[in-house]
């Protein structure tokens, strides 16, 4: 286990360096100039040059990279050009909101995916299975931002059931110690705050989670179908167990492995999806921050955010690999 973690840590470091280089070069060669976004019209050429020198943008890309990387390894990602704040503290203050949203969306996706896959197998070769398959096909074809817009129109405008923007009602008077609002409200037992977080969060979480739920349903149902003809399933039938117990107790764990693989891969799309979803729901996470950073050509902030996303992906892949061992006893001690 120790050797495994060490190898993964080295791989992660190499990945991060690669990501940093690519992003650093890319944001500097694409059109758009951060200085042009900050100066007032009619500024003199000398002022522009002075600003350029102030931010170090007059040096070569290679020189700029080494300056940036030298600071980055000490944990200093510079100052945001547009927001004039420290990049690290800015990201750390917004990251919890995104992590909670992504976690909620994933939890919803897994719950819905497992329930519908199991129901589909329970009704295998009967009419309800066709309804589940057909409905699932439709959900598979609709991307997250369409769900977001549909929810806003449906539950925000047509039947105003829930707030459609923000993370929490600003009128709520509650001093959070951390920015993990949901976790903190849960631990401190604040029911009213939790309810408001739910009211704000269910639409973006559901919009983000539905496409993943449909993918999990399809993959898991397929592998459950295969598992149901295995000999150990026949043995469970011959022992006198009912169908639900057999699907959940015997087949599910073995069938979960392909579904886990696809969930791990699709999770990166889900995190990428937070960028649009957070913008649509004005949700104060790093996705929303990323869009503003790109619009303002805020180079230090963009770089910091990309590295953050890369760290999240690496962490998720690592957790998926560790979960394989949990599901498949043959992979343990090995």
């Amino acid at each position, binding site marked *: 286990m120790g050797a495994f973690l060490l190898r993964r840590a080295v791989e992660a470091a190499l990945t991060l360096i690669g990501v940093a280089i690519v992003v650093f070069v890319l944001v500097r060669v694409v059109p758009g100039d951060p200085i042009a976004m900050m100066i007032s019209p009619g500024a003199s050429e000398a002022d522009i040059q002075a600003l350029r020198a102030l931010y170090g943008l007059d040096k070569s890309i290679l020189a700029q990279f080494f300056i940036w990387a030298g600071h980055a390894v000490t944990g200093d990602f510079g100052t945001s050009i547009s927001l004039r704040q420290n990049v690290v503290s800015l990201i750390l203050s917004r990251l919890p909101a995104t992590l909670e949203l992504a976690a909620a969306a994933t939890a919803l996706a897994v719950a819905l995916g497992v329930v519908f896959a199991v129901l589909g197998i329970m009704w295998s070769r009967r009419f309800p299975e066709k309804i589940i398959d057909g409905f699932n096909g439709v959900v598979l074809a609709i991307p997250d931002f369409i769900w977001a817009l549909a929810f806003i129109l449906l539950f925000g405008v047509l039947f105003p059931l829930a707030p459609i923007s923000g993370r929490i009602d600003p009128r709520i008077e509650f001093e959070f110690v951390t920015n993990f609002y949901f976790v903190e409200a849960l631990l401190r037992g604040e029911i009213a705050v939790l309810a408001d977080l739910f009211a704000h969060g269910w639409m973006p979480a559901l919009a983000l989670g539905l496409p993943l739920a449909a993918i999990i349903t399809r993959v898991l149902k397929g592998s459950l179908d295969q598992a149901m003809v295995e*000999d150990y399933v026949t*043995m469970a039938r*011959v*022992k*006198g*167990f009912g169908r639900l117990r057999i699907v959940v107790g015997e087949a599910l*764990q*073995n069938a979960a492995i392909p579904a886990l693989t696809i969930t791990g891969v699709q999770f990166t799309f889900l995190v990428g999806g937070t960028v649009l979803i957070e913008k649509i729901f004005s949700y104060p996470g790093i996705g929303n921050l990323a869009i503003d950073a790109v619009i303002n050509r805020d180079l230090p902030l963009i770089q910091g955010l990309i590295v953050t996303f890369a760290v999240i992906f690496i962490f998720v892949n690592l957790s998926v690999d560790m979960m394989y061992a949990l599901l498949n*006893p*043959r992979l343990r001690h090995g």
Partner: protein
Amino acid sequence: MSNTVLTIANLHAELRAGRKTGPGILRNVSLTVHQGEMHGLVGESGAGKSMIARAILGILPRSILISDGSIDCLGRQMVGLADSDRRKILGRDISLIPQDPLTALNPARRIGAQMTDVMRLHLGWSRARAHDAALALLNEVHIRDAEAVLRRYPHELSGGMRQRVLIATAFACEPKLIIADEPTTALDVTVQKQILRLLREMQNRHGTAILLVTHDLGVVAKMCRSLSVIHSGMIVEQGEVSDIVTRPEHAFTRALFAATPRYDRPADALSPVPGEVVRELEEKAATFDRARAGLS
């Protein structure tokens, strides 16, 4: 009160597709297993012996339909039995020793969980009580360090060990009838003998009736008192093993005896059973396909 645990009478089974039924897989099969006896069911691959086993357990493939006859097990009619009623009998009164111990255990669950679940389901025992019973059963099938084995996963045990576990589990609820479906076919030759001896020993101790499904007449001759020989879905010979071994009536039985390899004969003296079940079945299936094609 008769002392039979299983009576199959005039059983017919057919392949079906839609509303159309096809060739007979089983034809007029009748068979009786008495309390505490080991009955051998012998036949070639494809003769229909596993179909009989599956018909008793109610786990026939969807494409096979029992068209006539009855399966009476402990006074209950198994043909057409509701699923909920069948589940009360399976595992409790009838259990199965499967053909392939390598695939019959769930790779994701510990041995202990897979042995105790059936006792907790049917006997309503607590986890602790079922655990103790599983320990005793493992000792009965001569597994050393039983406590540790209960904590293991199937992949950590050898094929022979897994079959011992499955035999122990089959006896867990003290069933009246055990169906052993080719219990040694998937095992190493050296292990086969030990497993058969163990099965015999367990049967004597528990007095359970066993229907031993096998292609090996030699095994039946050693293990069973009575036997049925099945050929192309029909029982061609039935009776006491001692009678049939000395005076086989049907040509197929004689051929089966001749085909049983013996150590006192050179290997090249092997005489295969004449005729081919497979070809016969293929012909039947072809007829069926033609009939179905005519239907659509």
